């Protein structure tokens, strides 16, 4: 990629790393994964604070790191803006001085002037002389963001930028980030463990686990079609099961999947051999309730019967977990509007019938549960 960021990082010790990522100008790429997955390490490598054993980082056509050619620019020589998790503001300096410190010297105009404009951009006009200790968490985050932008960075790196503020402030700052990305037009790499936040703010998600990139794709795609069962588990997908491929029906664009006593018609997945053991997943939204009041045609698709094991009202939605018959006790989760649940007399312990939409059944390579 000529412009934007591309990075390939490999390390064996002390932190194993095997990561490849690209991020176009104006794009937000979220690095998602449990703590210890190596997300922050990846950011530190891009910034030049950590050095992987093998790697290549190119930004906007400029090589920042190439271990094969012994190129390794210092953080000072990489046009990078970074917001640390705890902001890492200089405690002895005013907000203005914090930002001005990052304005490149020798440029046009006074650093203070540019710093003042950046503080205005992040809605902090009037608080220039405050020290970090005199600012709220949200205000500190804004100073950190203004400071990161002061260098006119070619890449913006955000390390859990919303983790240390309260819910209300977080929503506000997240909205501001969405507006900001239109203004700055640089690749933005966001580290977060919050999947919802990632799905909301990022164009693409990169799932990291033990320092390894497992899958990179837009949020909707990754949720509907996780590459592996491990990704599905990391995404906390509810409906992940094991099954066996019975055969393929190319003319119907379907794959037949054996699940306990059922033979399901799944989305066409010819990459799996007949008889292969697979993991499969289905989003809750593709599990359709058989309604007494209004039967629909979708009911003919993979009908299942079972018993309601748990029913919780979450706002206007009832989250239902059903024990599916003939599967050895598998639990399937679906969500239905609360009024629908009521009208159909759904209750704990009661019988329930559902259909699985064929296109929602996604097969993945089977792997033993290890981590």
């Amino acid at each position: 990629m000529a412009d934007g960021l591309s990075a390939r990082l490999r390390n064996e010790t002390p932190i194993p790393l095997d990561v490849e990522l690209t991020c176009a100008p104006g794009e937000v790429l979220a690095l998602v994964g449990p703590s210890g997955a190596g997300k922050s390490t990846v950011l530190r490598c891009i910034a030049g604070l950590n050095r992987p054993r093998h790697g290549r980082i190119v930004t906007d056509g400029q090589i920042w790191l190439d271990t094969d050619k012994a190129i390794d620019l210092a953080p000072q020589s990489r046009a990078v803006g970074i917001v640390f998790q705890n902001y890492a503001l200089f405690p002895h300096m005013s907000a203005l001085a914090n930002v001005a410190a990052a304005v490149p010297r020798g440029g046009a105009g006074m650093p203070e002037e540019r710093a003042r404009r950046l503080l205005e951009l992040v809605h902090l006009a009037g608080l220039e002389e405050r020290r970090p200790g005199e600012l709220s968490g949200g205000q500190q985050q804004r100073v950190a963001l203004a400071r990161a932008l002061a260098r006119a960075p070619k890449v913006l790196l955000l390390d859990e930028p919303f983790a240390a503020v309260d819910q209300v402030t977080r929503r506000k700052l997240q909205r501001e980030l969405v507006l900001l990305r239109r203004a700055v037009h640089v690749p933005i790499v966001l580290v977060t463990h919050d999947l919802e936040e990632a799905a909301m703010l990022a164009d693409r998600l990169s799932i990291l686990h033990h320092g390894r990139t497992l899958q990179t794709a837009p949020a909707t795609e990754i949720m509907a079609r996780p590459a592996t069962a491990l990704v599905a588990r990391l995404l906390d997908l509810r409906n992940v099961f094991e099954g066996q491929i019975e055969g393929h029906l190319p003319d119907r664009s379907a794959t037949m999947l054996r699940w306990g006593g059922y033979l399901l018609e799944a989305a066409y997945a010819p990459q799996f051999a007949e008889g292969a053991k697979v993991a499969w997943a289905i989003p809750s939204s593709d599990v359709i309730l058989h309604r007494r009041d209004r039967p629909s045609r979708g009911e003919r698709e993979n009908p299942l019967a079972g018993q309601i094991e748990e029913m919780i009202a979450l706002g206007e939605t009832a989250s239902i977990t059903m024990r599916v018959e003939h599967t050895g006790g598998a639990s399937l989760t679906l969500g239905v509007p609360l009024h629908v649940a009521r009208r159909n007399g759904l209750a704990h312990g009661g019988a329930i019938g559902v259909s699985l939409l064929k296109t929602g059944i996604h097969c993945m390579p089977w792997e033993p549960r290890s981590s």
Partner: protein
Amino acid sequence: MEWTALILSLRLGVVTVLILLPVGLIVGRLLAYRRFPGRGLVEASLMLPLVLPPTVVGYYLLVAFGGASPIGQVWERLTGAPLVFSFEGLVIASVIVNLPFAIQPMQRAFEAIPREIRDAAACCGMAPSRILRTIELPLAWPGILSGLVLTFAHTLGEFGVVLMVGGSIPGSTRTVSIAIYDRVQAFDERAAAVMAATLLLLSVVALGLVYALSNRRAGHRHG
């Protein structure tokens, strides 16, 4: 009051502080930020003067500086005067004895600066020298100053090592603490009392300064 002795003590304190300021900054910062083999050994040896009896330190320095030792011989060839029982010898001894007093607080002060703050400074494009000047030194200065004040106060009060290495030559190695001991031996209680009170006052002022600075630093963090 022996003014010569007091002035000599103050001079010794100032010279020791001036030498230990750069030494403390460099060694303290190195120990705070760098991991290298033998680091623990270096730290332990720097602490030795704290735990050894001053007479033991003084004895070894006397042996090391004496005319029979290579150091003493080189010094004498270069300057034409012996190193022991001279002000210069006293300065070197004082610097060595005060290493932990200067380095420890400075090392702690540098260690107290979060790594992310230094990383952030580098990612702001600031050169290492500018990071040192505008970030590290301003944040560490209360610790640096405590190191210097402690060194100064400790130098004024040092007795054993000074006596061993310097003896008690007026105007050259006779410091206030030696003079006090000397006056007590001569039953000149009044002179001893005045000088002791002077040292007490200086120490109280020094400690007050250290505490005021550390409180200011703590207030700084929370405020």
